[in-house]
């Protein structure tokens, strides 16, 4: 049982380039999330999804896009990378039912835009 898998773990982008951060979970969770963590700060929600085909904006969605074609996958797309997007990105999932509300996080992607 792998939980939540994120790839890549590290990436350096040049300003204006694009990339996709991959996130896959094998727990059959309906809810998936993308957060970013800046130094000394808590996590801020970028986008979330409550099931396949349904996505919605979080607190800081500008410069990002998502899709959710399957229950397992929730990729995050960065278009026209900017230095302000330098951060650590975490994907998470949670299930329904009181035993499953707790988040499971991936190991993170450290992104640097230069």
């Amino acid at each position, binding site marked *: 049982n792998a939980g939540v898998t994120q790839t890549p773990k590290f990436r350096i982008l040049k300003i204006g380039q694009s990339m996709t951060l991959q996130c896959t979970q094998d727990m059959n969770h309906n809810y998936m999330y993308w957060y970013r963590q800046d130094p000394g700060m*808590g*996590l*801020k*929600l970028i986008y979330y999804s409550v099931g396949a085909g349904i996505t919605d904006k979080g607190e800081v969605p500008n410069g990002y896009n998502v899709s959710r074609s399957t229950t397992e996958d929730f990729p995050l797309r960065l278009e026209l990378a900017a230095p302000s997007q330098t951060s650590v990105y975490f994907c998470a999932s949670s299930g329904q039912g009181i035993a499953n*509300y707790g*988040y499971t*996080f991936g190991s*993170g992607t450290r992104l640097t835009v230069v």
Partner: protein
Amino acid sequence: GIQVEQSPPDLILQEGANSTLRCNFSDSVNNLQWFHQNPWGQLINLFYIPSGTKQNGRLSATTVATERYSLLYISSSQTTDSGVYFCAVEGDSGGSNYKLTFGKGTLLTVNP
């Protein structure tokens, strides 16, 4: 949106000491979770505790929803407890998508 404040921001302990971390939130919540981020960056869920008290080994947590705060207790601390502890909540605004708002965390350092 809902505000989450954690205290203290930093805490240094000797191994074996006990500690209490506090989380205050500005509105009623239907979801509150505590996380530990280890020095390698991995985030681990410790408790789902929108109200009441739970215990897991040396860790326990209490949420007093009516007074809008939660406490995380660490007893007999070990060096492996070092890292950042986050409190995260979802406001009770009707419906739930389990979206969490995070505090800035408490950085705990446990020295041998």
